[in-house]
């Protein structure tokens, strides 16, 4: 799984990615999100952090580039279910 920030979409306002997965995301000097450690948290938490970014600035793909999020919300929920959301 790969994670990147679409910097032009990051509003530096909500900071939900850092709230949910602080081991993975950090803020730069402009308050915008950066990926600090892509392996810092489990897949479920990374995906929930990406979902929580309302401007959809957190982009998550498979290793081969296939989009995970933004993408099919139903498929993402099923994936979160399989990962164990509770």
């Amino acid at each position, binding site marked *: 799984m790969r994670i990147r920030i679409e910097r032009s979409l990051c509003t530096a*306002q*909500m*900071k*939900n990615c850092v*709230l*949910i997965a602080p081991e993975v995301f950090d803020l730069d000097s402009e308050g915008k999100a950066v990926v600090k450690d892509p392996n810092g948290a489990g897949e*479920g*938490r990374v995906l*929930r952090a990406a*979902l*929580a970014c*309302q401007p959809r600035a957190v982009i998550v793909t498979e290793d081969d580039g296939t989009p995970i999020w933004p993408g099919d*919300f139903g498929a*993402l*929920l099923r994936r*979160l279910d399989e990962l164990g*959301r*509770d």
Partner: protein
Amino acid sequence: MGSPETERSAEPRLLVEPAGCVPTATRGHWSAGWRLRNAGSRSVELLASWLPHGRFRADEQALEPPLVLAPGETVRLERTVACSEPPGTVVENAFLIVRLASGDRRWRLFARLEIRVDQSGAPEFSCEDVKVHPVGFSEISTEPTKGSS
């Protein structure tokens, strides 16, 4: 329908705290924030929010996509609210209402707010109480139903 005890154990538990209120570019409109922490044992989806009070108001807005909050996780919710009250005004019983899904049930969270408008006209708010109710039930009664054996 489950028993009252089952209902209570399934009930989402969220902590709500204010996370600032800053002016927007539109006079009388403010960007108000809350931090919501899932203090329960099940994941919760945040589906929509609104603030119905006429003096601290925001229409219902769906979260698209919904936010998925696992136990222990915190998220920030932000809404643009309309508030044009004069300095010194205190607004009681305003509510932030959040539509939730948890398990296979729908719920509504009611966060009771107290708003105090400061001398510059900016609203400051505190969260006084939080309750969660299943959608379609105004109250869970522990009293025996009339006519039941």
